[in-house]
């Protein structure tokens, strides 16, 4: 793990910006996708894929690699952006994303995209599947860590909490989950559709070590994941407070942008706001 110099923070912030730009371009070109939840997760994905996780793009099946599950599978654009920028597959493969002959599916498919550790799409699976992966690591005496990114809307479903109980029962300290807590879901604010707060008390009561951070602050994300790796008796939940649609003013905190696609003008404005000089 490289040390976090101011220079390194700037580098990671730049990668986050690129992941946002990539995500929007993928979605715009395809004409469908989920921009809001991709943008809210950009710093988290950056820190995982470019700073924390032990991975090797040349060996996507490496047994000792850290695992990642995008439980909120609809944010696939930002995962694909991270994987291409990390070198798991050429970005050119995303040019026909959405076409039948493109290997990369609307939602992540572990059998079709190198670097995708688990198929996802329908919500709720990540914590339970991640618990199984973490159990497997322990049984095999492997020291890889399992990371799961889940959404706050997704966490309204009961199976998330069933998985939470399993991880707590088996003291799966090698499992770290990050809650992309952007408080916006398809039909509106999470706190209106089905209030779930307080997240911290719920996860603490479930037997997890809980950290709460600003999910757009690179340093806070890095530090939280470092602390999680030092907890030895329980799984860790990092509650990352984020903004849905982060970085694009008209998308921020607006449930319309959960699953809608920017038109050409909106795309131009979005890229400008994201500091992208090249508008192609």
């Amino acid at each position: 793990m490289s040390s976090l110099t101011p220079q390194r923070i700037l580098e990671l912030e730049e990668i986050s910006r690129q992941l946002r730009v990539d995500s929007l371009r993928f979605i715009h070109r395809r004409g469908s996708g989920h921009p809001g939840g991709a943008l809210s997760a950009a710093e988290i994905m950056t820190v995982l894929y470019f700073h924390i996780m032990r991975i090797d793009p040349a060996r996507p099946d490496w047994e000792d690699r850290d695992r990642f599950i995008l439980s909120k599978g609809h944010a696939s654009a930002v995962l694909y952006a991270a994987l291409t920028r990390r070198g798991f597959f050429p970005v050119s493969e995303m040019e026909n994303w959405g076409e039948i002959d493109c290997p990369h599916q609307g939602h992540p498919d572990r059998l079709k995209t190198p670097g995708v550790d688990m198929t996802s799409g329908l919500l709720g699976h990540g914590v339970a599947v991640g618990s199984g992966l973490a159990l497997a690591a322990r049984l095999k005496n492997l020291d890889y860590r399992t990371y799961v990114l889940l959404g706050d809307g997704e966490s309204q479903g009961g199976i998330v909490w069933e998985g939470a109980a399993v991880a707590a029962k088996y003291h799966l300290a090698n499992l770290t989950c990050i809650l992309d807590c952007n408080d916006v879901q398809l039909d509106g604010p999470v706190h209106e559709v089905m209030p779930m707060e307080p997240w911290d008390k719920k996860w603490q009561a479930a037997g997890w070590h809980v950290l709460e951070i600003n999910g757009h602050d690179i340093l806070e994300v890095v530090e939280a994941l470092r602390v999680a790796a030092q907890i030895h008796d329980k799984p860790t939940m990092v509650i990352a407070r984020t903004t849905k649609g982060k970085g694009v003013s008209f998308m921020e905190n607006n449930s319309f942008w959960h699953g809608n696609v920017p038109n050409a003008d909106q795309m131009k404005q979005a890229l400008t706001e994201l500091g992208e000089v090249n508008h192609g």
Partner: protein
Amino acid sequence: MAEMAMREAYGRALAEFGTENPNVVALDVDTSASTLSSFFAKQFPDRFFNIGIAEPCMVDVAAGLALGGFVPFINGFASILSLRALEQIRTCVCYARTNVKIAASYAGISDFKDGPTHYSITDLANVRALPGMTVIVPADAAEAADWVPIVAEYDGPVYLRISRAGALPVHQPGSPLQVGKARLLREGNDLTIITMGSMTGRCLIAADKLAEKGLSARVLEVHTLKPLDMDMILKCAEETGTVVTAEEHNIIGGLGSAVAEVLGDQLPTPLERVGIRDAFCPTGRDLEKLMDACGLSVDEVVKAAHRALARKK
């Protein structure tokens, strides 16, 4: 030989095979004393995970264990696994192609004292429709035990249907078994009775009764509902000219439907289907009597055979 419950034969076989293959792990949902995964749990406490009463979660945890290189056998009631946990089975086992083995116990109406909530009369329809799923229905206790090592070493998702009860013994332990290869249990020329699971023994008795009337019934055991041994089914249909199916399952979506699909597609042949007639079966005191009352008696098979023969050209 004393009749052993299918679940006990399965449970003992799993514990035995656990010694042979250290990658086999087992999960249960607070039903290990019922499914008899308890034999495995006792022998391999470090490789057994009790998930509590949370079947969907068990499927997902097993998928994770499979991703991590293990061969998880998940144990629970067929009714809950094939309904409440069906989405997890679809997404995280079949679509993600994780090497999870689903030991679906208390299948059919074998949990006769607990009634319709606990019966699984649609499970085969549910899992058969999933791409990538292999579906196996043992005929008796010996066969259930014999499947364990084969299923464990088979690459990919498997649904292994286990009865709570002991079906009529049909097989000697260790008789040849192959995924997707139906077994001819009795030769015959006038008609073919195609069956599986607990109805297999009953169909053999029905064939005896038909023989008393001078009718020669062939009995084919299709233990693998998917992938279906279409060649063998077509061969039997062609050679005998009429077919009866019998299964401890709803008449919709199980073996009878699968055979009807094959025959309808490739070789239209008179077909009579014995099964539960699209109804919720009542609670009973005794499984054999309950099966008789639910349209699964030997007599129903014999009657279906006569109907089939009457339709034969």
